[in-house]
């Protein structure tokens, strides 16, 4: 299969970035918007062409989806270790191409309306271009180091975009936080990469992932503290993934990241960048699965499950709609992660893997839709807070409908996309681990509940008095909503298991009716509860809030994780570590050097009395010197 043209997919947005970035003074905003959109349109078309080529024309050879790659050396470490740059085409990367292209394109279009009149308009599109480029590079990466490189690049573009309103202190803080927390996770990632590189002698995915390959077969060669070093490496790498995907305990950056413009939240912090962690685990799935009988994989599963639950609980209590969505994102990511965690490898065993990717796909659509919808709401009412909203369905019908669709999708109500993927995940969890299944089920219910709390809170409920009447957003914003809404409806009917599976040989996935039924009922219950609580203005919510008391309070304050982090950084690292070090440097280290100099001068002042100016003292010194030397060398130093 000729995959050269795929190179263009990432290149185009990069060119756009350079174009807009370098000439951002000279280009008129309107023009730059078009440049961005059409650049991405091109990439999107190419991606779809790639999908067609891969899945339906060349991809499948005797029932197995092949892996195509083209790479060239970028830098040599040793004779064996080197960083390659190239593109790797296999089911998940193609799938990701689609996700990134579609969402990014939508967001581009949307932003033309949303960012209108902003002075940094061109800059914004430049950054979007940079991000899209990096994301493409990430999903197409052929080896660990390439993925790490683009990993960092998406990180920095997210930093730039969160800090887009750079005069707002909160935005700066949020950007910094996001970057540093993920950077801290990447610290683990990098060490993991180095361990892999040292013990397997390669960074290349194809070599690493080959089940018969040396990397997987001799995982037990070296062990450290009772675990195979490879396992350690995988855990460390997963830490990196957890950082990007805002898994517990690295989740704290994601809510704050909502300081960025809403389209950014939709693109980066809902649909694409945050799933990088999931993608990373999926990318290394064979290693995770085979090495030490999936020890690392279990950790992945539990982290995912816990994060899903944790985030869902917090999401219930938040009042900033973007934060609610942020936590729901985190929760859904947890879902995907746990799905990977409970997955097997061969054929139907690998349903979890398939489901995870499937959910990634659908979630990208409806979560982007949710964010864009929220964006359009915020655009209308100029506030992020539920208390300023209500009854908007009259004013902005399109947003209302699309938002509802998205909500239903995420709540797992058939036939919307979310239902299918979520159902597969539950199946996988059920077959693998009952505990996780229960958690997942509970989370599904919670999801439905908070999502509809949000929906009712925004579009129904009491009619808030708006100073100026909110109106429906322009077409440039509603159009993407509609497109995404359609995708959220039909997305579920894609026979995903045919295309994306762990062992790359498709299988027939059947709906597991009892489980599906349970899932649906749970979903419905959630929706219903939300209906009871929030459709009409009534005190119920407050009563129950009181009933939960402290738990509720903690949930609102996100279980005080920000505070813990703040304590560790500000109080411990800054006050107790770096401040003392700075002082130590001035006082002790520098002080010693100073001291040597000063002592010399002081000493020279002490001995100045020797030069008394009395010629007789000189004479005495002279004679004494002679005598002493004579005595010493005659009696003591005789050799």
């Amino acid at each position: 299969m000729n995959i050269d043209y795929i190179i263009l997919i990432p290149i185009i947005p990069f060119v756009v970035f350079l174009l807009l970035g370098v000439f951002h003074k000279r280009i008129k905003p309107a023009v730059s918007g078009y440049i961005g959109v059409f650049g991405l349109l091109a990439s999107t078309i190419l991606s779809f062409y790639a999908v067609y080529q891969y899945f339906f024309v060349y991809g499948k050879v005797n029932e197995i989806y092949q892996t195509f790659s083209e790479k060239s050396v970028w830098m040599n470490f040793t004779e064996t270790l080197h960083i390659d740059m190239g593109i790797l085409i296999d089911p998940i990367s193609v799938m990701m191409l689609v996700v990134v292209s579609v969402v990014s394109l939508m967001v581009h279009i949307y932003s033309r309306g949303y960012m209108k009149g902003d002075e940094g308009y061109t800059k914004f599109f430049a950054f979007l271009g940079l991000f899209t480029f990096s994301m493409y590079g990430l999903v197409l990466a052929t080896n660990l180091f390439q993925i790490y490189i683009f990993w960092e690049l998406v990180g920095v573009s997210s930093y730039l975009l969160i800090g887009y309103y750079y005069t707002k202190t909160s935005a700066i803080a949020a950007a910094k936080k996001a970057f540093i927390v993920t950077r801290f996770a990447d610290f683990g990632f990098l060490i993991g990469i180095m361990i892999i590189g040292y013990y397997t002698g390669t960074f290349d995915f194809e070599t690493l992932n080959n089940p018969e390959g040396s990397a997987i077969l001799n995982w037990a060669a070296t062990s450290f503290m009772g675990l195979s070093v490879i396992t350690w490496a995988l855990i460390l790498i997963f830490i990196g993934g957890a950082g990007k995907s805002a898994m517990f305990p690295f989740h704290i950056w994601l809510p704050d990241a909502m300081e960025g413009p809403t389209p950014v939240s939709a693109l980066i912090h809902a649909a694409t960048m945050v799933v990088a962690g999931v993608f990373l685990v999926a990318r290394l799935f064979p290693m995770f699965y085979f090495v030490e009988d999936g020890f690392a994989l279990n950790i992945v599963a539990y982290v995912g499950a816990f994060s899903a639950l944790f985030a869902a609980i917090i999401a219930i209590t938040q009042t900033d709609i973007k934060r609610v969505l942020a936590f729901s994102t985190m929760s859904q990511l947890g879902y995907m992660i746990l799905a990977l965690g409970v997955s097997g490898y061969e054929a139907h065993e690998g349903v979890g893997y398939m489901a995870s990717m499937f959910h990634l796909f659908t979630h990208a659509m409806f979560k982007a839709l949710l964010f864009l919808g929220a964006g359009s709401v915020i655009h209308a009412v100029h506030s992020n807070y539920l208390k300023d909203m209500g009854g908007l369905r009259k004013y902005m019908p399109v947003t209302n409908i699309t938002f509802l669709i998205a909500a239903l999708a995420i709540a797992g109500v058939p036939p919307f996309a979310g239902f299918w993927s979520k159902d597969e995940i539950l199946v996988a969890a059920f077959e693998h681990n009952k505990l996780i299944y229960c958690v997942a089920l509970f989370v599904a219910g919670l999801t439905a509940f908070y999502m509809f709390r949000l929906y009712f809170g925004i579009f129904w409920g009491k009619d808030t008095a708006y100073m100026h009447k909110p109106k429906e957003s322009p077409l440039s914003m509603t159009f993407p909503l509609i497109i995404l809404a359609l995708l959220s409806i039909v997305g579920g009917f894609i026979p995903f298991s045919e295309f994306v599976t762990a062992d790359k040989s498709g299988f027939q996935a059947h709906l597991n009716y009892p489980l599906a039924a349970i899932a649906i009922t749970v979903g419905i219950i959630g929706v219903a509860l939300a209906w009871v609580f929030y459709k009409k203005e009534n005190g119920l919510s407050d009563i129950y809030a009181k009933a939960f008391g402290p738990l509720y309070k903690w949930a609102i304050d996100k279980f005080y994780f920000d505070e813990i982090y703040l304590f560790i950084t500000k109080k411990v690292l800054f006050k107790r570590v770096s401040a003392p070090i700075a002082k130590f440097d001035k006082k002790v280290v520098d002080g010693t050097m100073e001291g040597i100099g000063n002592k010399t001068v002081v000493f020279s002042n002490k001995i100045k009395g020797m030069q008394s100016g009395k010629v007789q003292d000189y004479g005495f010194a002279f004679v004494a010197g002679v005598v002493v030397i004579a005595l010493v060398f005659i009696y003591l130093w005789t050799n």
Partner: protein
Amino acid sequence: MDILSLFIIVPIITILVLVFTKNLKQARVVSMVGSSVQLLMAINLVFAYFKERAVNSSIMVFTKDIVWFEPFNIHYTIGVDGVSVALLLLTAIVVLAGVFISWKMCDLPKEFFISLIVLSIGVYGFFISLDLFTMFVFFEIAVIPMYLLIGIWGSGPKEYSAMKLTLMLMGASAILLVGILGIYFNSDADGGALTFNILEIAQVNIPIESQKLFFPLTFIGFAVIGALFPFHTWSPDGHASAPTAVSMLHAGVLMKLGGYGVFRVAMYLLPLGAIDWSWVFIILSVIGVVYGAFSAIKQTDLKYINAYSSVSHLGLVLFALLMLNKTAWNGAILQSLSHGFMTALFFALIGMIYGRTHTRDIGKLGGLLKVIPFISVIYVIAGLASLGLPGFSGFVAEMNIFVGAFQEDNMFMRVATILSVSVIVITAVYILRVVGIMLMGPIKKEAYLKLEKVTWYERFGILLLLIPIVGIGVAPLWLSDMILESLDPFIKGLL
């Protein structure tokens, strides 16, 4: 005149011309022309090197050997390999940028440029000489002008800083002298004649005990100028007081002499001593890496921040050099280069900001991104480069260092490596702190609203430094391979 000696001749001619210049205009033009010629020569040298290397596989190419002090067998021996070529290029670029940055040097311009170019002579000579004596001579020539440059044109407690810097560096070079003499008098261990020639000494098996004795002297002698903890304290004060161009040259080029010297002399000529002592200095350098980064977090003066980050970055260089494997050494050289460009760029930008706002206290600055966008954006880029973002030279260098260091398979090295890897986080912290406080956020003073926009010569100087950073970062292969293949003969001495 051979291609290398020109690197000494041309500056001397420049100086001779400078002596007859009348005012700032002539002086800066002359020195600009002179250093541009240098840059062209350096670029030409790179290509010439590749051409020569294709046909000539000896360790050093373009070698030239003139007897100087026959009784001591002191020669003027010059020659280059990939490493020195790269560093020469770095020097040429930074010097030219420095000239551009000090375009408006009003006080005693002639003298300023002369001292600047004398300094560069020292550096060029150091990088091309293969004779310990010549090397040492150039080393001191490079160091001593700093005293005048900081003392006359500096700011703040300049006399104090200048004196401190000069004394510590000269003290170090004095220790180094003992080490060199030690090497010299052991260079006949195999019955040959005494010699200062590095390549010849490398063939000699110097007895282990004298290696053990002289390695620390040589290493410390060089490493002090490479800001080895705890001998780094000259650097923050020195940088803070020095005028912009001098900080650039000093941090960008002069501090590289340390790493280069360690690599070319200490490690190459005294391998057994190196192996014997490495653990001590590894500990010191790792401390330097982490410690420098941490103390950078708490600084409020831009130049201090940068100085401490230099301590941290160059700590990595020494750390890598002690790792005794090719990858790490490659990383060390690359780190020297990239830090050279980055920190020079930083100081240039700091100088511009200071020249406009008259303060270097980040607490007083804010929102510059709005008023002087070009400078601020470049500052952000430099910052990202310095925290090792892919696509910039810093990443390439650090990855080489880390991966190389990770090849050393024992617990001590592993721990040291992981500690030094942790710097990628700490660096991010202090860089983003500065960016957040100084460039972003609301504008602190009314006065900042009407700051002078960036001028053409500033723009030029900046781009001069930015291009290589990005160039190395995006396409490292040619450079890293050029260095790698030059490292083979050196690594062989250790194994």
